[in-house]
């Protein structure tokens, strides 16, 4: 059981999305990775506001660890940590600006509960495997959650890590794939056949669960149900979720918001609340 109700989680998700819109707008004409940040909001909210134990307390050895392997979704992580009261308001206002601690890809930061740096795709699962292995060796019951993108699964290192997780039976690492179906150059299934994700993970011996990645009910259930086999949750999501003009739109992988779009996006999000 988690402490917050589904309605509360939904409200937090909306606040997270508004934070993401604010950060994107603040980034100015340079733009920001809005699409992939929006698609994983419910996943991060479910983890940080429901499932994970003390994720913000990097100094506590029994905390659950989270690794944002799809580092370009950093805004979603910053926003969730902001809603959790870890990252202060002024940092969010300053995010993505020159000299900010919060850049387009997360940088390891103990004070803000950011476990590892991200940005170079394909690396997070290996780091998660190493952490999980070390935790098992110390009989530490903490879990490691790693969020990958479906496009990111093009990277060979992801499957090197899958081998290791399977070989060492690391059921204390939970892999989540944010399957929003889009990557830089277009549809994931057109770039490389992403429709085989489920079969690929199954062939590595993982317990694979496919869910609606925007449904808190399904996320909480999938994240709570655990067995002795390493688990992968394939979360079907919508890139740019919550903003009509950004949903499922390739150009919103990384883009800037005009004044008009900014107000429209906020308006839509507030109305959905």
């Amino acid at each position, binding site marked *: 059981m988690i402490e917050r109700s589904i309605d509360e989680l939904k409200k937090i998700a909306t606040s997270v999305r508004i934070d993401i819109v604010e950060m994107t707008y603040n980034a100015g004409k340079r733009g920001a990775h809005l699409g992939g940040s929006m698609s994983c909001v419910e996943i991060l909210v479910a983890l940080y506001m429901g499932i994970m134990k003390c994720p913000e307390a990097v100094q506590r050895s029994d905390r659950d660890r989270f690794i944002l392997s799809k580092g370009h979704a950093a805004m979603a992580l910053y926003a969730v940590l902001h809603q959790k009261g870890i990252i202060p308001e002024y940092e969010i206002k300053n995010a993505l600006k020159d000299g900010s601690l919060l850049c387009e890809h997360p940088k390891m930061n103990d004070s803000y509960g950011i476990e*590892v740096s991200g940005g170079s795709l394909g690396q997070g699962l290996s780091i998660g495997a190493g*952490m999980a292995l070390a935790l098992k060796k110390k009989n530490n019951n903490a879990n490691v959650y790693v969020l990958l993108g479906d496009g990111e699964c093009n990277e060979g290192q992801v499957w090197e890590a899958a081998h*290791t997780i399977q070989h060492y039976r690391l059921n204390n690492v939970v892999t989540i794939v944010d399957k929003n179906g889009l990557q830089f150059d277009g549809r994931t299934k057109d770039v490389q056949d992403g429709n085989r994700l489920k079969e690929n993970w199954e062939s590595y011996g993982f317990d694979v669960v496919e869910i609606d990645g925007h449904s808190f009910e399904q996320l909480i259930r999938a994240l709570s149900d655990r067995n002795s086999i390493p688990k992968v949750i394939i979360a079907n999501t919508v890139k740019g979720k919550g903003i009509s003009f950004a949903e499922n739109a390739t150009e919103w992988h990384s883009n800037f918001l005009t004044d008009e779009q900014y107000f429209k996006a906020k308006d839509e999000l507030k109305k959905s609340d």
Partner: protein
Amino acid sequence: MVEKKKIRSWSRLGQSGTACGVAIYESIEEYSNIYVITADLGVTAGLKRVMDNYPDRFINVGIAEQSLIGVASGMAFEDNNVFAVSFATFLTMRGYEQIRHNLGYQKANVKLLGISAGVAMGMFGNTHYAIEDIAIMRAIPNMLILSPADALEAYYCIKAMSSYIGPAYIRLSDGVNSLPVYDEDYDFAIGKAVTLRSLSKINIIATGRMVHEAIAVSDIFKEKEISIGVINMHTIKPIDEEILKTICNSQLIFSIEEHSVIGGLGSAISDYYDCLDKRPRIEKIGIHDVFPTVGNKEYVRKECGLYTDAIVKRIENIISNDRAIN
């Protein structure tokens, strides 16, 4: 105090055999947070004793060097000191971006142990030679780079790294039955070069397997009544600026390394002197921007001019053509 008998037996094991079979083994016994991880080269590296006696402290990720760096780093982020072992070439080059991201950027407490660096792999060919590894490791911020001269020094490098917190690359050259530079114990300290022949107007700075050659060269010149100093630069980054400052008035400095002359020890020395108003003349002896013709390691070293007679001739030519030196 390491006994002479041990030094002789470690020379037979070589740098890798001593580092993995003796030093890491001892360190695992001493420190509970040390782990060893490899990409399918445990036995080759000399880790069999660790694998047999400390299976819980040994991890094998299979032939997957990129993930090796990631897994090692994840373990290091959990307050461990992790030795990641593979051939120097695959370790530093296949996993380069992972090293930059985890060890450089995030300062993961991982010690990269690259075995068979330089041309030690002989007939295996250029895929297995690590002749650019120093250059690329030097370019990564926060990396410490060690390059021991012989098996005893390899032992000391590992022992030093067992209590050192931070990323490092330890470059192990040569194979089994390596030539000893030290026949008795000495004081080793990270970042402090060792003077093996008295410093003079002409000095050689060498690293790794080439230190042995440098001594042989100096001794030949001594018979000709020409004094040539020899420095063993076992720490390449950070380089020992103090000793470089001491010899900044040398007429001639030779660097010798079993590595490309681009970006290696010679470049590191040049980089230091570039900052001074007056810089000594530096001649870089190494592999000159080629993939060497393949053969056993002695053959390749001859091809590249990395053996005593060739180095002596090169130094003689320079001395005789440059009146300012005499």
